[in-house]
């Protein structure tokens, strides 16, 4: 069993509940592994060892007194360092926030702690979540545990890398253009962007307020489900017993594939693994169909004309005061957003409504849309461009290509592993559900996950 599988909440929670495994032992082993592995992957900016062990002892005492909080009791999690943990710096991986200390926990952290989770550390990211590779960080680049010469994806790259390396059971990520799903795909883990507004962003440094989402990341869908419940503030329970380990009933599940635009520009290995995944769904009895987003070509332009000025407005004062404190790439993009005119921002907001209606329509008669998460496997650290289907394209644009629509539209979307390239790099399958239907989407994802694990 891989370390990532051993850290599944579905595996750990029953052992903790039965007192076969103490929170203190699990936390201690996790901290030892972080000390050993983190120098290679640079997933953590801060490790909260003393505090985590103290929390673990308190939680063990609670269990001894018969006070079990549920499946997250004693589970070690990490938090993207864009999200406040009271008493600890929220650096956003930037020199700009070097003197910051959070006064209180973000709402999601409060909820996770109330459910019994133990925060073992703050994870590295692309500075201010403004990038897809987690390279531009004041704390150095995050490295992909599968191949440390490659990016972990971003911006929640430290969270995905920590999960893939077995350094925590789950993490809090954020997603504005794909920042939960992209690193999940790059590292071979699971990442969920819930419906827009479903999980509060209080205590989260914004990138683009009308696009920002907070969501869970983990090694499997069951763990993601448990974290999602806690972060949503609803009672936490494991998914239906053992379902993740049995052959799912995918029969009659209706899945639509948006082929035009979304499958036009793909790495050959990603295309092959996605094709395999769809074939597995079909053989399991899923009802497959094609669909179309008629304004798909406008997705990047709508995204840019909303995200750029919203980000620049947030940073404007700091950018005037200490521009040199930002990494060069992030500074340039922040400056770029200051040239977007108000009338073009409004045009993009109208475009968002059009795209949202088109995604709603594509989902009207199906349970989910299916498409790849990332058009390419994890790029090499420092790689600026990639050649796809005879065209040279910038890495940043291509990494956002398949995820940003669902930040624009607010639909829930999840990435889960669906195989590897011949070089051993993970490929992600992205599933998209109806707005307000995040729990239903998780059910679809759980059925798909079991299918992806069955030998071909």
């Amino acid at each position, binding site marked *: 069993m891989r370390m990532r599988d051993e850290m599944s909440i579905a595996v750990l929670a029953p052992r903790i509940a039965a007192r076969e495994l103490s929170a203190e032992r699990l936390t201690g082993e996790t901290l030892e592994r972080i000390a050993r592995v983190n120098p290679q992957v640079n997933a953590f900016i801060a490790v909260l060892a003393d505090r985590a062990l103290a929390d673990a002892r308190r939680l063990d005492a609670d269990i001894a007194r018969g006070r079990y909080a549920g499946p997250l009791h004693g589970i070690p999690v990490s938090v993207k360092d864009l999200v406040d943990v009271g008493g600890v710096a929220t650096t956003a991986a930037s020199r700009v926030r070097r003197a910051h200390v959070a006064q209180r926990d973000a709402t999601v952290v409060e909820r996770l702690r109330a459910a019994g989770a133990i925060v073992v550390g703050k994870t590295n990211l692309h500075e201010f979540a403004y990038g897809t590779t987690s390279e531009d960080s004041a704390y150095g680049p995050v490295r992909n545990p599968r191949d440390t010469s490659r990016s972990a994806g971003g911006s929640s790259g430290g969270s995905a890398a920590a999960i893939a390396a077995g350094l925590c059971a789950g993490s809090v990520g954020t997603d504005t253009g794909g920042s939960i799903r992209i690193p999940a795909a790059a590292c071979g883990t699971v990442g969920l962007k819930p419906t827009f507004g479903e999980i509060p962003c209080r205590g989260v440094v914004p990138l683009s307020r009308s696009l920002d989402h907070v969501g869970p990341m983990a090694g499997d869908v069951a763990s993601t489900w448990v974290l999602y419940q806690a972060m949503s503030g609803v009672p936490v329970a494991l998914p239906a017993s053992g379902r993740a380990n049995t052959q799912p009933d995918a029969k009659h599940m209706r899945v639509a594939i948006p082929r035009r635009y979304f499958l036009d520009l793909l790495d050959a290995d990603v295309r092959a693994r996605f094709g395999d995944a769809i074939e597995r769904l079909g053989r399991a009895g899923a009802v497959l169909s094609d669909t179309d987003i008629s304004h798909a070509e406008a997705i990047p*332009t709508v995204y840019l*004309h909303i995200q750029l000025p919203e980000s620049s407005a947030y940073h404007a004062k700091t950018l005037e005061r200490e521009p040199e404190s930002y990494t060069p790439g992030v500074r340039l993009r922040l400056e*770029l957003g*200051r040239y977007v*005119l108000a009338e073009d921002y409004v045009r993009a907001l109208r475009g968002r409504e*059009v795209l949202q209606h088109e995604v709603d329509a594509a989902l009207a008669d199906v349970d989910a849309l299916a498409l790849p998460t990332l058009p390419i496997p994890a790029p090499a650290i420092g790689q600026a461009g990639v050649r796809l289907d005879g065209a040279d394209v910038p890495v940043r644009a291509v990494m956002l290509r398949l995820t940003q629509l669902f930040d624009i539209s607010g639909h829930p979307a999840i990435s889960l592993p669906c195989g590897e390239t011949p070089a051993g790099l993970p490929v992600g399958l992205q599933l998209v559900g109806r707005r307000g239907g995040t729990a239903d989407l998780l059910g679809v994802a759980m059925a798909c996950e079991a299918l992806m694990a069955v030998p071909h």
Partner: protein
Amino acid sequence: MTREAVRPRDVREWAESAVSDAERRGLPDLRPLLENLAQSLAVLRAADWNDPALADAGDEDEGR
């Protein structure tokens, strides 16, 4: 350093004005980003949802 007002009518004028302003501010590296943004802006301005003044009023959202 403050920026000059950028009030162009079309995409080309917007791009020229923005690039000129960026260079005046000592940010020549912004030029390729602004040129890419100009291409994106042309797509945005040409989008078929951008002519609401000629549409039926009933096509507009209610609740204003």
